[in-house]
């Protein structure tokens, strides 16, 4: 099918953002009503989250539309306390009968769980919302016509395919967008609502030479269309990344300096986030438990969780318990200053919530990041590479070999070998191993190239020594 007929066929129904998916009562009204019904049914306290979302995705491969997906959905979750016992329920059935069942289930479940003296909603004085502008929602995302979405994906893939004759295939390119609202209400007087939009564009080219086939990807993501990188830039970067992997070899096992590019450095911050998560701390299930005030990282390391960065992917006016979002210094010049907490874990540890409650529709709140990042340092990425005589530049990590209880770290890796300060040849089928506690102490240089592509981010990082296992 030609591009022309795509346009004719598609714009009639796809991605028009006409809101045709929802026609239910306002979400906050519903959340408040669920709370008051729960209290009437015997709950001492109640908290309801109602969420609604629309999603759209256009996938292309080798210039042809592969799939289009569009949908909207809405569901509600309820957490209740009966004394110090908790129960919860969720449902996508928001009819009066569905809501009645939701309330009945949560209250019945709460009567069967254990008394937990630490369970409960935040104190009324802790509740509230940041009331400044946060730049989380942009109309342009939903308004973009389907044909234009397809065209952006097509341009990104085209730029990748045109970059080099060794790029012989593609796993495709896609334009995805979503927008959603969250409404939260509780029996202690909190009610609030906000909406967010996100759009992203990615390309996944496949390159081949005598040595075999490689795949890599690149993407851009933003809350507004206006903030996305140009499709051609996404495609060309994806192409550069896949081309440099061709001819990758396995290296000899060695202990060497390891440099993480931002895309892989970010995963170390994800591990660190889990290690300062109050749930792991109070259970003694983190190598950072009991270490507040101690030096846990090199002096170059300052880590912040900021839930209020305008336009951030982890930004919100309040957390999922109705506590205002805020900025929390986690590590300052190597010293552990704060864990990330919700109400429950704060009470368990004798501390105050940091406004990091994150809940799904059901269950007790967990802990989620705001914008959790490593502060950029003074070094340009080239300066960091230049400091390495013989080492490994990691561009991809796979697997789940991180044990947060011990900090033991061992993951599959691919990247480039660094020789005399320059990227020399591609490497694959190796692992990198160490211990996160030690690795944090061994961060020798921090790059200046911090960029957010999600709620967790880090610049280029150099760790003075890790074991690279290969041959």
């Amino acid at each position, binding site marked *: 099918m030609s591009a022309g007929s795509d346009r004719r066929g598609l714009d009639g129904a796809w991605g028009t953002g006409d809101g045709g998916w929802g026609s239910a009562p306002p979400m906050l009204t519903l959340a408040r009503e669920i709370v008051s019904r729960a209290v009437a049914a015997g709950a001492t306290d109640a908290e309801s989250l109602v969420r609604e979302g629309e999603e759209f995705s256009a996938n292309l491969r080798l210039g042809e539309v592969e799939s289009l997906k569009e949908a909207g959905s809405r569901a509600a979750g309820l957490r209740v306390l009966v004394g110090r016992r908790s129960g919860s329920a969720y449902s996508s059935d928001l009819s009066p009968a569905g809501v009645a069942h939701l309330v009945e289930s949560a209250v019945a479940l709460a009567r*069967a*769980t254990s008394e937990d003296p630490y369970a409960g909603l935040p104190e009324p004085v802790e509740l509230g919302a940041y009331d400044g502008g946060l730049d989380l929602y942009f109309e342009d995302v939903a308004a973009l016509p389907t044909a234009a979405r397809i065209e952006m994906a097509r341009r990104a893939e085209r730029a990748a395919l045109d970059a080099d004759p060794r790029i012989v295939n593609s796993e495709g390119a896609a334009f995805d967008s979503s927008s959603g609202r969250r409404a939260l209400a509780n029996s202690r007087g909190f009610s609030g609502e906000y909406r967010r939009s996100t759009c992203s564009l990615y390309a996944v080219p496949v390159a081949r030479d005598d040595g075999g086939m490689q795949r890599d990807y690149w993407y851009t993501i933003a809350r507004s269309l206006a903030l996305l990188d140009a499709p051609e830039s996404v495609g060309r970067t994806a192409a550069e990344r896949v081309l440099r992997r061709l001819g990758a070899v396995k290296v000899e096992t060695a202990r060497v300096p390891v440099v993480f590019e931002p895309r892989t450095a970010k995963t170390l911050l994800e591990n660190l986030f889990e290690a300062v998560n109050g749930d792991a701390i109070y259970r003694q299930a983190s190598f950072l438990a009991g270490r507040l005030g101690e030096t846990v990282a090199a002096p170059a390391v300052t880590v912040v969780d900021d839930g209020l960065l305008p336009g951030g992917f982890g930004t919100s006016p309040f957390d999922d318990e109705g506590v205002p979002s805020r900025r929390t210094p986690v590590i300052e010049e190597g010293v552990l200053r704060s864990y990330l907490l919700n109400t429950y874990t704060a009470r368990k540890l004798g501390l105050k919530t940091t406004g990091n409650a994150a809940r799904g529709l059901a269950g007790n709140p967990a802990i989620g990041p705001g914008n959790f990042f490593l502060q950029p340092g003074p070094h340009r990425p080239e300066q960091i590479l230049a400091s390495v005589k013989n080492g490994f530049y990691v561009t991809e990590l796979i697997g789940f070999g991180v044990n947060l209880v011990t900090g033991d770290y061992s993951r599959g890796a691919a990247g480039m070998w660094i020789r005399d300060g320059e990227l020399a040849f591609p490497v694959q089928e190796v692992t990198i191993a160490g211990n996160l506690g030690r690795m944090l102490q061994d961060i020798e240089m921090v790059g200046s190239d911090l960029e957010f592509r999600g709620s967790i981010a880090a610049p280029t990082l150099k760790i003075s020594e890790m074991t690279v296992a290969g041959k």
Partner: protein
Amino acid sequence: MFFASAYNLAERDLESYLAEALSQGGEYADLYFEYTSTSSVSLDESLIKSATEGISAGCGVRVLDGEKTGYAYTDDLAPEKILRAARVAAHIAAGPSQVTEVEVEKLPARHSLYPAAGASADLGQKIDLLERADCAARAFDPRIFQVRAGYADENRRVLIATSEGRLTEDYQPLARLSVLALARDGSNVQRGMDGGGGRATIEFFRTARTPEQFAREAARQAIVQLEAADAPAGEMTVVLGPGWPGILLHEAVGHGLEADFNRKQVSAFSGLMGRQVASPLCTVVDDGTMPGRRGSLNVDDEGNPTGRTVLIEKGILKGYLQDKLSSRLLRAAPTGNGRRESYQHMPMPRMTNTFMLAGEDDPEEIIRSVPQGLYCVNFGGGQVDITSGKFVFSASESYLIENGRLTRPVRNATLIGNGPDVMTKVTRVGSDLRLDLGIGTCGKEGQSVPVGVGIPTIKVERLTVGGTQRPLPNALGGQIRRLCERRQ
């Protein structure tokens, strides 16, 4: 039956939705109705801290037109909402409708692999399982200081109707119990995890496997790790124990044989059909028809009966795992591997239960045949890069093998290899095929589905182990062995 009574959904309604889905000229359409109820309970610090129930229902409409897919879903099962979803999905095609009439007919079930719909177990029974697990883990050793246990079950009802006239319904139960234990000795803290279940009711945990068994196993792993030395680094001989280490097959070959990657020629296995990709000792199958197994289904999520597919037979690559789209485009028979996470997701080729058939070797003799290497019995997760073929899986319990004997436990280490050739290095296959206990969840393109794996004890001649310590040089290993032989 369920949807007809709960939502007043008659065959003529299905036919009208399908007709709407094909109204713009699409070649094929299907409807996936789902009504899933879930419950979960968790214990932490010997308290039942959380209990949850939930309901998720909706309908996904898919339209195929050549290689193109249109997909839309709704979580409101009112007829006008389903029609709207059908209309949206229909627009993947652009032309006059090619279908004058759709007639669906209910098909008899080919399999009956799990218990039929019944009353859900009451909360008290679930809490009892968790409390028993907590007691058993703590009683195992005084160094166990933290225990978490969780019970979760799901009852999924599905109705799938296709424009080819196929109408199927299924009731798919799934239950799982898991235990995590932490052990402490001074400042040394270690963890152990175990769990299991299947497409079963709570009865499974009274008969097949008790909470005490899971709890003692989790506690045992944590205690063993207290003694663990640093893991070795570099290439060495690896012996995998039976059962869950079958995750090797899932990562190294299973994903690479899913038909979508091969149709697009982006798998490291593309073009290798009929070729030798493993040692002749290896026969690997995917079987969705094993009664009660976590990865089993009576019908896949496209309404096709599940089956048993030989992927590798005596080392030769024999088959791919197909879904509707790939089997249409490759003109291959469907294998019953079209699966999806929920009505909100498009189906794609996925594994069910993937395992290697038993060989003839004595497992203990396999270990005795290794002068120096690693014996891995428990794993965390794994991952694969389909295109380069590189895969990893992370050992959570392993032991050094020295002179044919297990010596000491080592800490967690990731193993990395290359899918298309790791299996050629399998030199021994044990007689002790075992399937995992029902804890696996596989993620692909953002969709999670329950799966099973299994393997007998196998010896892999060379695999890279990602620890931190340089192993003894091979020459020295050889020397030690020769000295021993001389002494004998």
